[in-house]
């Protein structure tokens, strides 16, 4: 039992077994985000293929396995349908973490940086890295939305295009969020497993939900 508590490593509190490790809103956000973000990614790559950012029509195309929509129009339909689910999910979660003050203790803080610099506990260090990485997804997602609005409605939001210099730079940054999200997904999964073991991973997906 003691070992399990150490593994889930929520810093100092010992939670009774009856209380779920993750709050229900966090689980809902995580599920909706994972699915809508995957839809955004796959339909976005379908759109990318109409005229690859790098090299234009002669450029390298993404293999069909990773695409959603069948062709450009289908990819756009998926992209501009999923954008509502994806961005509104992020919005309510943002409000939720502000209202519940969850942002104060669930995201990276000075204590994590301190643990990495002067800490002696290797598990605490892994946990600090885990928090740094999962906090990083929020600026990545916000950047994807910001650059996406600039490409979707450049006539209404020309200043967004201007922020990045020109249209090509805007496309590159919007596209760059794809590898960033993929790198995040890999690092986040591995660190979650390392920091909290199977129990933590379970707790975010299906524990107490079935």
């Amino acid at each position: 039992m003691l070992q399990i508590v150490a593994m889930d490593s929520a810093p100092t509190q010992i939670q009774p077994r009856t209380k779920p490790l993750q709050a229900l809103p966090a689980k809902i956000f995580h599920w909706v985000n994972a699915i809508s973000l995957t839809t955004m990614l796959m339909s976005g790559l379908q759109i990318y293929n109409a005229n690859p950012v790098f090299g234009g029509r002669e450029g390298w195309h993404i293999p069909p396995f990773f695409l959603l929509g069948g062709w450009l129009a289908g990819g756009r339909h998926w992209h501009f349908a999923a954008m509502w689910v994806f961005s509104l999910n992020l919005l309510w979660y943002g409000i939720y973490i502000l209202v519940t003050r969850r942002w104060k203790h669930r995201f990276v803080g000075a204590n994590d940086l301190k643990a990495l610099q002067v800490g002696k506990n290797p598990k605490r260090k892994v946990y600090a890295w885990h928090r740094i990485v999962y906090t990083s997804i929020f600026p990545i997602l916000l950047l994807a939305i910001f650059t996406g609005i600039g490409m979707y409605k450049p006539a209404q939001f020309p200043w967004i295009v201007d922020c990045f210099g020109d249209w090509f730079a805007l496309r590159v940054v919007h596209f760059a969020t794809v590898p960033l999200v993929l790198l995040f997904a890999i690092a986040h999964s591995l660190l979650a497993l390392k920091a909290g073991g199977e129990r933590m991973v379970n707790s975010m997906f299906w524990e107490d939900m079935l």
Partner: protein
Amino acid sequence: MSDTPPADHPLSRRNLLRLSGYSFGGMLLTGVSFTLLESLAGKATEPLNQSLEEWLLKPQTPVPEFPASAIEPEALIVNTYGYTPEIDPIAFRLTIDGEVENPLSLDMATIQQMPKKSMVIRHVCVEGWAAIVQWGGVPVSELIKLAQPKPEARYAYFLSADRYYESWDLASCLHPQTILAYEKNGEPLPVENGAPLRLASPIKLGYKLSKWVGQITLVSELRSRRGFWEDQGYEWFAGL
């Protein structure tokens, strides 16, 4: 204790399999639902997206233009669905008909004497590329004003010599930067770019910007055929 993992091998094959399951679960899920929801994605949210686009459109506010030094002459890709029609500019007439009090048939000399609008704008293609181009021509609002639209007119069809067809909401047609261009980057409009007359506007995607426009028909209701690409699944409003 019974539902906790065996502590002796936390990174077992089972765990790794499960981890890969998490990564690919979303993909599989969308793959399966794709066949069920294929057309639903567009149909369900297009009305919502169109409302957003109509709400964002400022019908009489010009989009900021660029200096002539920003023009990218090589960036404009020639996209045509079929062939390039040959049009005799002397015999050419632009017809404006439908829900108007004063149907018109104008030759190029008359059109070029009308108020001219020149603008350097970003031309954005649905494929994702964009080009900064100078267009010069007559505002569509001037042509429609001359034809005196009836109050019931709500949409305009643009019919092209290559049988390409498009329909627009009237507010976007009357935007001060929606023009029928006969000039590109300071030169007479090349035939592959739509000479003698083509639509140019910063507020619509490129597939709305018909080349070789010969007829504008105002209507009160959209027909079943709304546009060449729209009828194959592209979004109709296509506002920027």
